């Protein structure tokens, strides 16, 4: 006997309800119409197939994603019942007549065959029913399917099982049917989406079986699954989508593991895991949206650092942060916050205003030098005093540095959180009495060293000294 895999252990209650519906019973007939609905990839069709097969029922299964017209549906339906040449069917009327004739023929054959005395009973399953109803121009197809037994004069005994995504009364053309013909009320069963805990369990089961993973790597696998779900589960709870994306992340992880043979000393591990968040976002933005295939993504992206001779030298100086791995916009943000910390606010316009930059930056320098000569009083706070910069000012300076060609998008906040997670900048804000940070006025503080920021600027050929007044 077939058995459901362990992945469906969270569907036991739904399984048992469906088993009770479709188990053989000498006195109580089968329900005539059942509608099962829920999100994509929640196990609806697998469970129903398992249960119908368990009781050896005769199933007529139609995946409406593979049906491109109603004629094709009629043809497929009849071909499942008969091996003979199928006559041409142009409309539903032809379909009903041929179905009825086949059912009568079947019944006569059963009567002649003394062994088989029971009537043939079919379970007609229409998966993705919304797609089939989209081909219905008259708006009556669903109603006619419900009346199939009556239209075939009682010769075709069946239970109609529909599988869809929406509540039954929201199916296409339901309003028209209810207004003109009457309310259809099948037995409805809702299959909820998997919870996060269930997805973790299922993915761990699937991935440990599929991947050739050493037992020592299983704990890392679980960490990656948990981390990835932190990013992915907010957007989608589709099991197959999550499985594909997480499998890809694990492939990347295993690939870099075998390549580098990392000694996990703790610091690098934290950094990789934090940086993988950026990788997860890239996965969402490309693979999830189908703008890039998985092989292409793996070729062009990696969550891991690229180790070269230069970066290894740099990493000895600051082994937490590798300037070459930061995205360009993150580098500009870091430079912007450094400049904002170095220069007083009143010189911002002179320094960053595009129209006057050529002249006034020099003028600002000259003015500052004059003031420096005139008074020894320093008007600005040095970097070491940890001056906090408001978000608006930071973004304004960033836009000025990036130029008009690159628009300001919400991606900038990704970079800000990346820099915060990497401890290159720090989020501060005025807190109220209870100590809760006021998120309406976020402020950031640069916690990177002077040398590091200069190294970042040098890596992108940015002349940072032109914009520093000291």
């Amino acid at each position, binding site marked *: 006997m077939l058995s459901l895999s362990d992945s469906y252990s969270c569907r036991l209650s739904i399984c048992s309800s469906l088993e009770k519906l479709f188990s053989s019973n000498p006195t109580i007939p089968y329900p005539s119409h059942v509608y099962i609905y829920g999100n994509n990839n929640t196990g609806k069709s697998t469970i129903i197939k398992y249960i119908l097969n368990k009781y050896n029922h005769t199933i007529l299964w139609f995946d409406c994603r593979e049906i491109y017209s109603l004629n094709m549906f009629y043809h497929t339906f009849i071909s499942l019942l008969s091996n003979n040449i199928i006559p041409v069917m142009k409309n539903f009327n032809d379909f009903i007549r041929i179905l009825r004739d086949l059912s009568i023929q079947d019944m006569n054959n059963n009567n002649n065959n003394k062994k088989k005395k029971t009537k043939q009973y079919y379970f007609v399953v229409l998966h993705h029913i919304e797609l089939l109803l989209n081909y219905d121009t008259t708006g009556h197809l669903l109603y006619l399917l419900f009346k199939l037994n009556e239209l075939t004069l009682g010769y075709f005994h069946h239970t109609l099982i529909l599988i869809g995504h929406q*509540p039954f009364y929201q199916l296409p053309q339901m309003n028209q049917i209810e207004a003109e013909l009457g309310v259809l009320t099948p037995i409805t069963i809702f299959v909820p989406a998997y919870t996060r805990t269930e997805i973790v369990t299922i993915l761990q089961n699937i991935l440990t079986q599929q991947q050739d993973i050493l037992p020592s790597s299983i704990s890392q696998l679980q960490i990656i699954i948990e981390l990835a779900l932190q990013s992915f589960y907010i957007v989608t709870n589709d099991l197959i989508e999550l499985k594909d994306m997480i499998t890809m992340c694990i492939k990347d992880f295993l690939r870099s593991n075998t390549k580098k043979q990392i000694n996990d000393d703790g610091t690098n591990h934290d950094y990789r895991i934090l940086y993988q968040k950026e990788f997860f976002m890239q996965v969402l933005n490309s693979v999830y949206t189908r703008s890039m295939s998985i092989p292409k993504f793996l070729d062009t992206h990696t969550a891991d650092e690229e180790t070269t001779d230069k970066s290894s030298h740099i990493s000895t100086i600051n082994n937490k942060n590798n300037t070459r791995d930061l995205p360009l916009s993150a580098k500009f943000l870091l430079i912007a916050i450094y400049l904002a910390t170095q220069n007083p606010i009143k010189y911002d316009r002179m320094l960053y205003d595009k129209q006057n930059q050529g002249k006034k930056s020099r003028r600002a320098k000259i003015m500052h030098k004059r003031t420096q000569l005139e008074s020894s009083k320093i008007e600005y706070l040095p970097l070491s005093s940890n001056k906090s910069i408001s978000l608006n000012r930071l973004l304004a300076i960033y836009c000025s540095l990036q130029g008009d060609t690159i628009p300001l998008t919400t991606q900038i906040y990704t970079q800000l959180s990346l820099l915060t997670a990497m401890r290159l900048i720090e989020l501060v804000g005025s807190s109220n009495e209870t100590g809760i940070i006021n998120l309406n006025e976020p402020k950031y503080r640069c916690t990177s060293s002077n040398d590091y920021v200069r190294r970042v600027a040098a890596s992108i050929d940015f002349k940072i000294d032109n914009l520093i007044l000291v």
Partner: protein
Amino acid sequence: MSLRRQPSRATAKPSPVSSSLFINSTIDLFLEQFSQFVRRHITENKSETVLVAGPPCCGKTKLLEYIFNKVYNEDISLNERLFIFRLNGLIHSIESLAIQEILSQYNIQQKTTNDYQCDNLQILLETISNEKKDKKAFFIFTLDHFEQFTYQKLNSILYTLFDAVYLNQKSYSILTIAISNRSDCLELPEKRLKSRFSQIYYILSSPSIDEYTKYILQLYKIKKDIQIPNDLFNSLTNIEQKIIHYLRDSNINMNENTRPDQQLDGCLTHLELLLLLMTNNVIKRIDEKLQNKINGTNESDDDDNDDEENKSGIMTDTKFTFDQIYHEYSKYVLKNQKYFYDKAVVRKTFLHLIERGFIRRYVGRYASVDEPLSSEHTMIMVINSDELKQYVESKPLPAEIKRYAKLNTII
């Protein structure tokens, strides 16, 4: 059940009632009178038309089948002369299709494989009746969803069947039984057809839920007592299916709403929920703007649609575009620095909401259903905003989502 223009009572005694049909006093009266009506058609050789109307799934077709079986059983010699053809207005309203169906049913009844090439219903009926030579043929036509036949002008099926009442056909007679959910369907045919229709009609109503429940339990030999709640959408079929469901799985909730609103629990991700809340927000703002225009607090708009709404004073279903929702999303992200994703990710999430029926797209008459979602496509929200509000308040959700819902207290 009400009876208009009762046919004359025959003296035939009522036959014993079969247990496979639910019978109460009203139904018994209908069975008795209609059986006499059918017998009269046969004995008096008279073509007739009659309407049987009633709410959907109240047992019209089943009662008629019971009567036909009874008539067959009473006089076996009628098997060769009495032909019952069941047509459905949804699929047989065109004459050529109806002829194919009639031929098929004739072959089933007579266990033959005749293939008469007839273009005309009258010729077909004459051909069939001529086969019986000296014996007269009796045709009974049941036209289910009769109103669908009447939607066609100059429907030749109806003309052939109704004209038989006035044509003194010696070889056959036709009893036309129109079955409809609409009690006003006699007003639907053309004048010429209306005049040919005899004003005999029966209007059936469903029996009470308790009576029918007891009957079904008796039929399945169950000694339990089950209470089916009174539901607006209850029909006999629905009651029977509920009982079958309960008998098979006693854990089900009999009081469950037959038309539940959108399933929110176990369905939505955080981003989807946020987009729904934002959609509500956008709709509220559009409604407020429109309301202000109607009240005249804003400057007048040259838009014609607004002028129409001003005149009628009735708010239409508020339509919105994806761009409006994305604009709201961008504002949220800029302010809160949370849930920031690419536009493509937001669009795909939005498409999932459409796929699951929370939001419905307006698809033009000639537009493809599969057309990708664009910024200009208008949509309306289907979900019940009270349900959304209760769900957001009751479920453990991230603080930022609850904060957004509370701040924008529109739901």
